[in-house]
């Protein structure tokens, strides 16, 4: 767990970057710090591994005051990922990943073996280990950055806008990867971004900062979206706050029935009962079947795109389990909203 207790940071030029911050970042959870530029989110992150020293207040990692520890040793015990990866251009991918193990004195052989293992963990081909960073794509470099941060298996991971410089498609991939990794590794992650969607996707808790280093609200994404503390938070989350909330709810509880026979559109299945497309009188329209784990938002989206307002539901293997109507989804979406707003 990371604890901020009445932390203040004033830079020599007089600007206050962080104002009286008290915040807990729970163990094994992802805390996302969001806000526009200059709101103190990055400074907050950088105070955890003493890249910035607080003016007053205390920061504890695992119960220990960070300022009481040797800065270099503290940093080796905390994984760090930065924007555009900050890889060492003169070292191979493998040696980049091995950085912290080598600093910890593991020896070259053991450090390289660990680095090779991590290539796979972050979804990179084994032969990319011998390459240099500039020979990789932006997304691949970012993966190396994550692998490097994980190398010594630190309990805490600091990520400073790690996916800010890659295109949206790759960013989504990297976010998925991170969520998958986090399921396995359960690190205490502090993640800085200015992208609200990214925050909602990744965060177990989201801390919203306002210019001047004020923490405005810190809550779970569903709570934040359903009950923003004030107009600033509501504005920051954006007009599509309701839809964002639906992106966090799954389709699992929406009732389903058998696919209709007759009617204007028929759902065509293959031999394995996997949906192929919708067949009308003289047209075929594509179908995108959804699983229980898909979000209510994607269900709503799919029901709007579907010719008869029905979505095809499938199990993990892609076999049809039933269909749900636009009304079912709509009703459920409304309920989800009301529940979230009344709760807590």
């Amino acid at each position, binding site marked *: 767990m990371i604890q901020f207790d009445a932390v203040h940071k004033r830079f020599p030029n007089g600007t206050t970057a962080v104002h009286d911050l008290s915040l807990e970042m729970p163990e094994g959870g992802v805390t996302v710090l969001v806000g526009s530029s200059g709101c103190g989110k990055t400074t907050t992150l950088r105070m955890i591994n003493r890249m910035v020293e607080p003016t007053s207040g205390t920061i504890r990692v695992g119960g220990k005051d960070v300022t009481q520890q040797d800065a270099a040793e503290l940093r080796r015990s905390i994984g*760090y990922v*930065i924007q555009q990866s900050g890889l*060492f251009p003169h070292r191979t991918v493998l040696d980049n990943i091995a950085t912290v193990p080598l600093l910890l004195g593991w020896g070259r052989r053991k450090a390289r073996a660990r680095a090779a293992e991590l290539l796979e963990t972050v979804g990179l081909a084994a032969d990319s280990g011998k390459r*240099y960073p500039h020979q990789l794509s932006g997304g691949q470099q970012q993966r190396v950055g994550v692998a490097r941060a994980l190398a010594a298996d630190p309990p805490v991971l600091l990520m400073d806008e790690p996916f800010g410089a890659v295109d949206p498609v790759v960013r989504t991939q990297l976010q998925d990867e991170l969520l998958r990794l986090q399921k396995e590794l359960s690190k205490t992650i502090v993640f800085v971004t200015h992208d609200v969607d990214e925050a909602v996707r990744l965060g177990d808790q989201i801390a919203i900062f306002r210019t001047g280093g004020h923490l405005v609200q810190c809550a779970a994404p569903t709570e934040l979206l359903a009950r923003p503390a004030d107009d600033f938070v509501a504005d920051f989350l954006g007009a599509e706050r309701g839809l964002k909330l639906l992106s966090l709810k799954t389709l699992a509880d929406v009732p389903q029935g058998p696919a209709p026979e007759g009617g204007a559109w028929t759902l065509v299945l293959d031999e394995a009962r996997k949906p192929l497309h919708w067949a009308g009188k003289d047209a075929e329209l594509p179908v995108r079947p959804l699983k229980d784990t898909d979000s209510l938002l994607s269900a709503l989206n799919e029901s709007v795109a579907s010719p008869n307002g029905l979505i095809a539901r499938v199990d993990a293997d892609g076999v049809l389990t039933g269909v749900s109507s636009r009304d079912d989804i709509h009703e459920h979406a409304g309920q989800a909203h009301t529940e979230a707003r009344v709760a807590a």
Partner: protein
Amino acid sequence: MTIDWSWIGDHTDDLTSLTISHLQAALTAVFFGVLISLPLAVVAHRVRPLRGFLLGFSNVLFTIPSIAIFVLLLPISGLTRTTTVIGLTVYTLVVLLRNTVEGLDSVPAKTKEAAKAMGTRPLRTLLTVEFPLALPVIMAGVRIATVMSISLVSVATYIGDGGLGQLFTDGFQRNFPTPVIVGVVLTILLAVAADALLVALQYALTPWKRRRA
């Protein structure tokens, strides 16, 4: 102007030893130049107020006429190889110091920051991150300093040293062009060869610069 080929044939031993002596003087000077300029460059790079002073001082040294330097050194180190090397070293400093400082400046702040955030201490960052990344710019300075030193060694003929430069005085005094021409050609060959070797060395030392994606 004709070349007396038989003179060359009769003097191969002398020419070889003069060439070696010439190269030794130049390379020793570059070696000490690098040794002195590396720490000075680190100071100039880190301590802003000292940068102007150090770079300015090396510029001033450079403006001293070469013969004057040797004359100034005579009372201290006499008519020796040491005087030659000290004089040449002083001249390499201006190039080496400036390039090393610029090389260190060229290391991306992001990379240094990453090293720090990973828990690398300052000295290790300097040795394993900053110097390697500054190497191409430093090597550019070493190449200039080397070629410059090779051409400057001849001036030390005035104090009885000077490697291949001795061929010039010999030729002039006897009004016999062959040694002069041979001296010039060998000096140029030496400079070209040394430069080529340094390019090869740099290639070997910077594997990350080779295959551009």
